[in-house]
């Protein structure tokens, strides 16, 4: 009996030795993140996907209606108008933001008091939006706003900034630019700081002009940061809600009803299924635009 027990103990001991040892610690360490991610990211996304195939209004059982929400949206002039509005705002905001931010970042590369400038640039980003939106309404008032006053004082015609479709888009775009460009500058300044100064010294020795240095060294070496700025800008514009909501209410004539604002309408209308489908379409649209932007910039980087 004792022999049998000893043999069994020896066998178990050998099995323990052969079995790969599972280390629990790493799993324990990542578990909080995985759990939080599953609860607050993965589950909502899958629930939203599920909702997009229902006509749920916030109460009662989920009734599956197939692709009806998607069909409705893809044939709805309102949906396409909101997408077109976001598209126009993207054109007004993102290229200008990249251009302005890169220019400022390059100009500040060797400037003194960079920290001070950085703080000044980030200030609009952290200023309460509602307060600034009210200032915007006053500045861009057609009859009594400072902007039109400035235009007329130099002999230019005044513009219906908040009363015409085109003017309202520009006013909203300017507010977005004002708020977000500083953040892009900070990102690009970080990108620029990674470029070795020797590269510029070598270029100067080879007789490269400032423009050549900018175009042939700076731009290619910050392309990845630029890609990031473009993607962030794209996300910002297609999720744009607060600025048009406060400044124009989506008007005039729904001319500034962005994709984000249109999505909000579904939620306030309690059309949660439709809203979920709208958000899924928005995800696909933003993904496509972001990938296209990255590919475009990478091809520039490769060339």
């Amino acid at each position, binding site marked *: 009996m004792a022999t049998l027990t000893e043999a069994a103990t020896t066998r178990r001991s050998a099995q323990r030795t052969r079995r790969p040892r599972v280390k629990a610690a790493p799993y324990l360490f990542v578990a909080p993140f995985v759990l939080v991610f599953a609860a607050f990211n993965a589950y909502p996304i899958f629930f939203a996907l599920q909702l997009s195939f229902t006509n749920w209004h916030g109460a009662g059982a989920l009734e599956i209606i197939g692709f009806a929400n998607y069909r409705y949206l893809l044939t709805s002039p309102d949906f396409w108008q909101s997408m077109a509005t976001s598209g126009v705002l993207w054109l007004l905001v993102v290229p200008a933001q990249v251009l302005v931010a890169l220019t400022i970042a390059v100009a500040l590369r060797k400037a003194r008091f960079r920290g001070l400038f950085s703080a000044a640039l980030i200030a609009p980003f952290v200023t309460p939006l509602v307060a600034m939106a009210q200032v915007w309404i006053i500045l861009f008032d057609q*009859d009594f706003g400072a902007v039109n006053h400035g235009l007329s004082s130099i002999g230019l015609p005044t513009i219906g900034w908040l009363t015409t479709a085109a003017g309202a888009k520009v006013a909203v775009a300017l507010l977005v630019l004002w708020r977000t460009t500083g953040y892009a500058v900070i990102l690009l300044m970080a990108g620029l700081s990674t470029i070795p100064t020797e590269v510029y010294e070598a270029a100067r020795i080879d007789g490269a002009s400032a423009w050549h240095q900018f175009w042939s060294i700076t731009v290619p070496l910050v392309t990845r940061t630029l890609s990031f700025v473009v993607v962030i800008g794209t996300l910002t514009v297609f999720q744009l809600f607060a600025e048009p909501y406060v400044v124009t209410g989506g*008007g*005039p*004539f*729904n001319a500034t009803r962005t994709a984000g604002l249109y999505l909000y309408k579904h939620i306030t*209308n*309690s059309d949660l299924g439709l809203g979920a489908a709208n958000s899924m379409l928005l995800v696909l649209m933003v993904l496509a635009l972001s990938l296209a932007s990255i590919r475009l910039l990478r091809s520039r980087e490769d060339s």
Partner: protein
Amino acid sequence: MTTPLSHPLSRRTLFRGAGAALVAGGLGACAPGNTTGADPLPSSSATKPPSGELTIWDRTGDLYKVFDKAIASFTAKYPQVKVNHVAVDINAKLPATLISGAGVPDGAFYDDALLTGVAPHLHDLSQLIEQYKPDIAPYKLGVVTVDGKVVAVPWDLDPGLLFYREDIVTQAGVDPTKLATYDDLLGAARTVRDKFPAAKPIHLENDQFLAQLWIDMFANQQGGAMVGADGKLALDSDPYRKTLTWLDTVRAQGLGTLAKYTQPTDLQTQDNGTQVFVPWAQWFVFAPQQLLKASKGKWRATALPAWEAGGARAGVMGGSSFVIPAKAKNPELAWRLYEHLVFSKEGYTAVYGKNDVYPRGLNTSIPSYLPALDPAAPLFETIDALGGQDLWKVAVEAGKQVPGGYTIPTWWGKAVDYFGVNVQKMLAGRMSPDEVLKTSASQIQKNLMGPN
């Protein structure tokens, strides 16, 4: 109650919120068994001395303070009752609370425009209101009656009035109190412009939500509404056509200032005398009292002109009532409280009369309980911002003329995306009145009412 406002955007924001909540109120229409006020509130216990505890919701701000004082008059009368008076964003919170059934208050203050959306979740108060029916303004009784059942205790009435700049019109030789019809008002606007060429005398509302509310006031004045008594769409009809045609004439002849209510252009042009006539709800009085500077004391109010000679001189724009949720724990106590506030002299006087918050009384609306509307017994005092005018007398006379039979559809707020926006296009000269009505009716029918 419409409403003491603490800052210039409150009214606009309020109605925006109301619009959002109104469509959220569409939840009610989606609930299973879309009947209205299914549980009649028993009236038997109304004879017993009230006792117990109840929770009611009111808007935040000045109005909360006013109601707090008024509730004190109720608890002084019934010391066995404890009222938990809570200030919340009702428009945002009540629809979801009614649907979920969790944390439901015993009573809540609520915008009339939202009522139909949550009606299935409210007590049927028909039996209790019956005794007061002859004394309630007909318009208000229609608004709180859904599917034949009274689902709210009617509170305030917000009659439309013609506000005008006394100093300017006097210089132009116009007497607004003599303007019998809207054609007369057009003529008066031309006269003012002849005298002051820079003037664009008549206010044209450029906020799509408020424009819809405003045009409904004109339609109500003519006995019209977006839907008829049969529930069918009645937008493409004479009252709306006449209103839009008149507004388009104001626009086309350069007789109007297109501005959003209380936005910079609006306030500046009212202060500098460009805008002279503002046909608006009684709550416009807040502007000269709190927002306008140079023209404070120069504004006056009179009855709206009629659309046809001898027609009604008033319509309604806005208003609120008290609701008692079907899932309230102490609905009978809530009824007793609201009965005190609305139908007793002590109650409505505590709200509208002089108090700590409004030393000269609350003057942005009037009660909808007709016995309270005695021209000789004003609840609020004369108003300095109107040159010492007795607004009470003007408002109660208008309030008594407001046509009844008005119905608010559940989709009213959603219609802003169609009708409100198309009106905005018309005021920008991009659509004709006929196009607005036909396009809006088609859009509303297709998107909000369905094939039936």
